[in-house]
């Protein structure tokens, strides 16, 4: 069964115990919907990872590029907002449902006013992962898809379309190369897969993810977000997958991950094995909201990732 699932995964997606994204959909059947978030920022929501789109007089900036196969469809939607060039792309992490369109958008986003190819920003571990050997004998990732503007400091910033863009590295969370991107004037935060309100978080241990880093990342998001009156609106949050959110939605998610971490930590302290923890129903209260028994990221896999992550820390 796993082999079948692996065959269905897009080249570059991982297929071990710590899973990457599901494979790309058929472009003819794919659905992408553009929604205005606030200020200069829009989001393309649908198949693949969410793509944040900032438009203005300077051109276009993207956070993540989705699957390569969906880039023409996504570009058609983006062109409804702007005929300017794509000048900046930020990759939030290495998975192909978020960076697969890097090369395609570099070409599709060129216009007569382009000054060379877009800058593709990513934390340096993203570049290291993309240039290094791929897991499960997956083919090498072509150079055109690599970031060309990597950073290794805690953050990077630049100015685009009249607002400051802050890119923060979140260490060892979903992967070891996660970035979150804050559009300061628009007051919008794109989180990548550190925050995925439609399912349990994927903790890619093979690529340096950890549950403690994930919780730290969610708490970092909560430091940046400021709601308006009564815990609503204000800073809007674009998750890696799923609907548009704000701080209150992140709080629920952070609470869930923290509470489950505490339970599994306690079980490890009591000497329970992974199988015993998976049988103990420690996530029952959240399974109907975030869990899955089939698909690319099941509840059982999530529990295993948390267990392994905490066990590794103890060593």
């Amino acid at each position, binding site marked *: 069964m796993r082999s079948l699932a692996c065959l269905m995964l897009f080249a570059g997606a991982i297929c071990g115990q710590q899973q990457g994204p599901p494979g790309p959909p058929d472009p003819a059947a794919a659905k992408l919907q553009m929604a205005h978030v606030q200020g200069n920022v829009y989001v393309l929501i649908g198949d693949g990872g969410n793509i944040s789109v900032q438009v203005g007089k300077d051109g276009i900036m993207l956070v993540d590029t989705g699957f390569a196969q969906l880039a023409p469809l996504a570009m058609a939607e983006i062109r409804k907002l702007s005929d300017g060039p794509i000048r900046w792309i930020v990759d939030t992490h290495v998975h192909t449902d978020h960076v697969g369109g890097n090369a395609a958008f570099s070409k599709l986003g060129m216009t007569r006013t382009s000054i060379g190819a877009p800058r593709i920003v990513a934390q340096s571990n993203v570049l290291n992962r993309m240039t290094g050997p791929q897991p499960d004998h997956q083919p090498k990732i072509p150079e055109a898809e690599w970031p060309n503007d990597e950073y290794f400091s805690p953050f990077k910033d630049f100015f685009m379309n009249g607002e400051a863009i802050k890119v923060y590295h979140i260490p060892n969370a979903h992967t070891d190369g996660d970035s979150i991107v804050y559009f300061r004037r628009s007051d919008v935060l794109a989180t990548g897969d550190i925050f995925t309100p439609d399912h349990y978080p994927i903790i890619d241990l093979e690529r340096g993810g950890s549950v403690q880093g994930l919780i730290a990342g969610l708490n970092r998001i909560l430091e940046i977000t400021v709601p308006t009156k009564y815990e609503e609106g204000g800073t809007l949050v674009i998750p890696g997958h799923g609907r548009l959110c704000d701080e209150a*939605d992140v709080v629920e998610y952070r609470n869930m991950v923290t509470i489950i971490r505490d339970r599994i930590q306690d079980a490890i302290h009591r000497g329970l094995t992974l199988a015993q923890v998976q049988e103990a129903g420690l996530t029952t209260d959240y399974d109907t909201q975030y869990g899955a028994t089939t698909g690319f990221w099941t509840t059982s896999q999530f529990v295993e990732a948390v267990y392994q992550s905490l066990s590794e820390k103890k060593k």
Partner: protein
Amino acid sequence: MRNLRPCQSAGFSLLLAALLAAPVLAQVDFTGEWSPLYHEDGPERLPGPELGDYTELPINPAARMAGDTYDADRISVVTEYQCRPHGADYSMRGLGNLRIWREIDQTSQKLIAFHTHMLAWDSERTIWMDGRPHPPDYAEHTWQGFSTGEWDGNMLTITTTHLKTNYMRRNGIPRSDKAIFTEHWMRHADYLTVVTVIDDPVYLTEPLVRSDNWSLDPGQNIGVFGCEYAHEVPKPEGTVPSHLPGKNPFLHEFADWYGLPYEATRGGAETLYPEYQEKIKNEYHPPDHCTRYCKCTSLFDCMVDSK
């Protein structure tokens, strides 16, 4: 009274027809200041529910575990919870001093929306009456959600979607952001009755049906609620208070205080129906005299009662 000429008669008929037709657009006017009546479920709605009281809730095991592991410290330690308002569904239960007003289109005189303002957290809601669709799934969710109304005779039926995750009962029983909230508003002279139905595929096995009542109170002046969070308890950043599964020491208190069999306090669809009373009749041993919330129909009464 002089006789009407034919043309006057025709004009009068048209006017009469227009007047008679108008109520089709808005059969009942709910406009006004409404004061909540707490004769139903007073202890739950005013001072707050007892820990471990899941009675009357058709909850599933997920909701039950959420309640069992809930630590009430959470609402002060998690600072983002300190100013978290009731959702649209719980607003109808809580400190529910209510103002309702109408938005009428000047040109067509059609009803565009009802608006509500409630004391608790200054919550305001718009109930669209102009037939607009609900937003797509990917749209942001809010505490008050997105509401549309339809007339069913003189009853207004309201459907609310796009709610944020909130509570079904303030002792840790959650209500998810996938829930659909339906209301039936009925006005009888100076009384407003609202029957509410929550369908929640995440935490309920059956719809949760409740009712609430208000009386018209033209002299009511709703003040400003106001809220600002503060760090109240020193804890490491990111702490989320929660009891470990099976370790909550307070779950039996409610059953013990009221002489109920513990099983009956655990909620679930079975406990909602009259047949369940027969099932537990030999295990129900009420106290000799009332000791808690014996007269609890106003906030003041309830606070005195709890001492």
